[in-house]
């Protein structure tokens, strides 16, 4: 792992929805080049933390430092240019666009300005952007779906397209909200290989919300545990596993809760 200042640091971040405190005085850092996981029971505020980092929600108090800059006041649209891209817990692809067009939406932040916006990317078959998007899809084993409208594609395929779209922004920090949820073990294995390749090709830091502890164990070197919007533990997975508080709140019931959540997803 690289040393140096962390790529992402939350300092005393709080968020309330009306009278409900969802994130409370949360501080932690994501080391540059690391693969950090955020775990915790349902409703712990994990996705809210992602929404605060990506700018979908604004913080009430506290600082969010990205590469040393406080981005808490930066509009969500600009954060992707800092190098933050994300996926969503419930896939948010554009259902009427083709897989290739969805991936090209991911390139948007890299070609703004009138010239970038008005390039006829869908008119010239050999357009640079189009070729790049096609190659990225092919690299993820999705070449066959290139011109398919995504609404009708299988869940696992949509998840991978969403990942490719996020990577197209050339992020330095990739936020993945439950990337392995709903995938079978073979699909999860493919996803891990894809993520390994992405990390090897570019200096990407991964920050992952995940309930699948096998996935976390295989992928992540650092874990932050959240409960009721507060950080209750942080460290390598081996250390977290032995933490009595984490065991009681989350891991102790992990088998049961995982079965429940899987049953709910399958239903």
């Amino acid at each position, binding site marked *: 792992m690289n040393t140096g200042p962390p790529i992402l640091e939350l300092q005393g971040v709080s968020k309330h929805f009306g009278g409900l405190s969802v994130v409370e005085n949360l501080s932690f850092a994501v080391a540059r080049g690391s693969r950090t996981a955020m775990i915790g029971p349902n409703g712990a505020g994990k996705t809210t933390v992602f929404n605060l980092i990506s700018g*979908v929600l604004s913080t009430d108090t506290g600082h969010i430092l990205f590469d040393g800059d406080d981005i808490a006041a930066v509009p969500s649209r600009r954060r992707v240019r800092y190098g933050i891209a994300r996926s969503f817990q419930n896939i948010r*692809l*554009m259902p009427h666009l083709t897989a290739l067009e969805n991936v090209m939406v991911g390139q948007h932040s890299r070609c703004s300005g009138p010239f970038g916006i008005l390039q006829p*990317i*869908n*008119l010239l078959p050999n357009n640079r952007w189009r070729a790049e998007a096609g190659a990225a899809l092919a690299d993820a084993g999705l070449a066959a779906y290139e011109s398919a409208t995504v609404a*009708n594609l299988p869940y696992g395929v949509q998840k991978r397209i969403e990942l490719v779209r996020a990577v197209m922004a050339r992020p330095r920090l990739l936020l993945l909200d439950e990337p392995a949820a709903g995938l079978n073990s073979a699909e999860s294995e493919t996803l891990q290989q894809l993520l390994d390749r992405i990390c090897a090709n570019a200096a990407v830091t991964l920050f992952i919300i995940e309930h699948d502890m096998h996935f976390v164990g295989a992928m992540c070197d650092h874990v932050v545990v959240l409960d009721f919007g507060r950080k209750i533990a942080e460290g390598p997975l081996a250390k977290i596993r032995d933490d009595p508080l984490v065991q009681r709140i989350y891991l102790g019931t992990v088998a049961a809760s995982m079965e429940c959540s899987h049953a709910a997803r399958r239903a």
Partner: protein
Amino acid sequence: MSGYFEGVLVLLAVNIVFAYGAFLPLAAGQLNLGLAGFAAIGAYAAAYASNSWTVTPTLAILLGGLIAGVVALAIAVPVLRTRGIYLALATFAVGQIVQATILNLEIVGGAAGYPVATFIRLPTIAAFAIVIVVIVAALFATRFGIAIRALHDDEIAADLMGVHVRAIQVAAFTVGSIIVGIGGGLYAHYFSFIEAQNFNVALSITVVLYVLLGGTQSVLGPLVGAAVFTLLPELLRGSQSWRYVVFAAALIVLMALRPQGIVTRARLHRLFAVNRQPNGIGA
């Protein structure tokens, strides 16, 4: 060419222009019920230019479109803050304001209407329509076109990918209004007489219906919608006064059967897939 046939084709071309003007904001998820107002601005500005200065009709019509676009840009900033039904009502109000203003504007004849001194025929109007269809189709093949469809599907995800949602929406509204303004100018120069009643809310609703009927997912939608809407009532002329009843009934059936519009991307995809297969296997 008979006068009747030319008249139908002119109407078709003007309606196609209007439909593409309505299509741009609709593709970005915005219902503009004030587009008759922008058509009126384009029509009156073009007519005024033709009557007052020695400009060619083509130049006057383009000028009318430009003025409609400037007004749209000024209005878009406050009006596009609203959403859904409120946006529809706000744009509807804009249309009413334009109509009421024209009724009280003596310099363009007020309620008595406004004659237009110069005249254009089918070839000019058809050329305008073709150029506009080509421009909009080209625009939708750019990143701008993808961004419009992307924010229509999911504003938050598009925003997080760096799409400037409001700028794209304002641009779509403004460019759409320029096109509608050009349509108004074409109408004025063919019929040689315009009055405020030509540009009431019925026009806005009809044009929006062309696009919804044709489908908002593809650039071909407005073309198909405008063609069906213009030509079907003409084909039904045989049944005289009942034709609009038959037409409305056909419309309801069509809407029930294909709520996404006649042309959808999935349908186009299937169409092209079917066309490609025999070439690949047969020959």
